[in-house]
């Protein structure tokens, strides 16, 4: 099959950027979207042109490195996957596919489709941790955790920090990301020591980075490659109210 790619090209943070259209012939429907970009880039290199810059690492859908907005949807037109797991069979012969970087004030474009997502790292550094003794591993069954709690915590812990929630949200809000971390650690006994300070610190860091607020539209949940639920945002709201009004 053959596809036309309308890709955002931007040399650096300062340049304004523009769309450029490329046609790729002989696309295999089993290719991943990143492999399609690889094929395009090999051609561009042979032609002596600048290849399209994009982030990627594991290409197995678990590292959260890849991420771009394809036809208006973060990670493209399939659910519960990262861009590396998007396959060309999702498209039809002759399609024009528009590829843009994640757009948010807190995610400046570095080059082409690569954005700086270190804002998420700074939020994590503000409170997304627990205090434990390093050294020998503790006995796994010494702290009882009911299965339901463990599952709920795990459903939040599956967040890979890709930033699709920010890209999908009309407010560029990072609430789903922050909520996943807050919720995950607030549910578990190991997270109790920092529970109150964590949510306050992480929300403060999130606001400082210039992310928007939550309008409860649910766009983040729909685009999240791990299907993280809005339930966790409600839990973060609860945690924040508890930390502000109830906790010591």
């Amino acid at each position: 099959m053959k596809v036309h790619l309308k890709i955002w090209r931007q040399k650096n943070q300062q340049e304004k950027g523009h769309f450029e259209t490329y046609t790729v012939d002989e696309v295999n429907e089993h290719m991943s979207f990143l492999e399609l970009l690889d094929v395009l880039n090999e051609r561009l290199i042979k032609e002596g042109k600048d290849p399209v810059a994009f982030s990627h690492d594991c290409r197995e859908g678990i590292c959260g490195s890849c991420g771009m907005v394809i036809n208006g949807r973060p990670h493209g037109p399939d659910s519960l996957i990262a861009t590396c797991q998007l396959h060309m069979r999702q498209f039809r012969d002759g399609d024009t596919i528009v590829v843009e970087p994640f757009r948010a004030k807190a995610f400046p474009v570095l080059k082409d489709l690569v954005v700086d997502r270190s804002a998420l790292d700074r939020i994590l550094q503000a409170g997304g941790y627990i205090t434990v003794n390093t050294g020998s591993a503790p006995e796994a069954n010494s702290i009882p955790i009911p299965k339901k709690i463990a599952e709920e915590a795990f459903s939040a812990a599956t967040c890979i920090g890709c930033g699709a929630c920010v890209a999908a949200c009309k407010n560029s809000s990072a609430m789903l990301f922050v909520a996943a971390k807050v919720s995950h650690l607030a549910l578990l006994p190991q997270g109790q020591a920092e529970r109150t300070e964590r949510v306050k610190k992480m929300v403060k860091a999130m606001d400082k980075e210039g992310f928007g607020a939550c309008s409860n539209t649910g766009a983040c949940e729909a685009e999240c490659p791990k299907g993280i639920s809005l339930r966790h945002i409600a839990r973060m709201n609860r945690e924040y109210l508890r930390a502000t009004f109830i906790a010591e």
Partner: protein
Amino acid sequence: MSWFSEFARSSLGKKFFMAVSGLFLISFLIVHLAGNLLLFQGPAEFNEYSRFMSNSPLIRFMEILLAIGFLAHIVYAYILAYKNRQSRPHRYAVKNNSPASFASRTMPFTGSFVLIYLIVHINSFTVKHRFLERENTDFYRTVVEAFQYGWGGFYWLFYVIAMAILAIHLNHGFQSAFQTLGFHHNKYTPLIKKLGSLIALAIPAGFASIPIYFYFFAPKI
């Protein structure tokens, strides 16, 4: 009070005030609708109610609370909408809103229209009732005249359109307020959503029935 100002300035704190004031305003809508439905009872009943509303000290107190509720909801809404817009300086070339409902995406717009309506409404009735025509004992007539002849016969239509837009606003607002306050559970969230849709339909329909009745069905005065 530094802990409180930190809360009030945070994005979550602002949303908390939006949710609390929003639910308070919904409770006001229900009370206001109950009173207005006395228009269907007749002039005597409605004028008696209207006299009570202008003389009761309790209503004076509630008016102040209500003004605070409206102000908080409106001011925080614009602050949040402005910040939310700023958080994406470069818009997408292709927009795909499929997962987000129309109501949830348009809250600042539907809210702004309701605000315009509110100003028109207060100017038409509240200002007259409370200040300009305090000696007027037949407020029933004032209301019916407005719906039958106001703005060259289109005043009633503005009310009906405003209520349709209010319905869209409430349809997202009610359930969203509970999410913001931290209530989300598989046990009761589906019920909250259904209740929200019911409230969003019933309250504006109740209000809209008044101009529709007086324009189309009631004898002209």
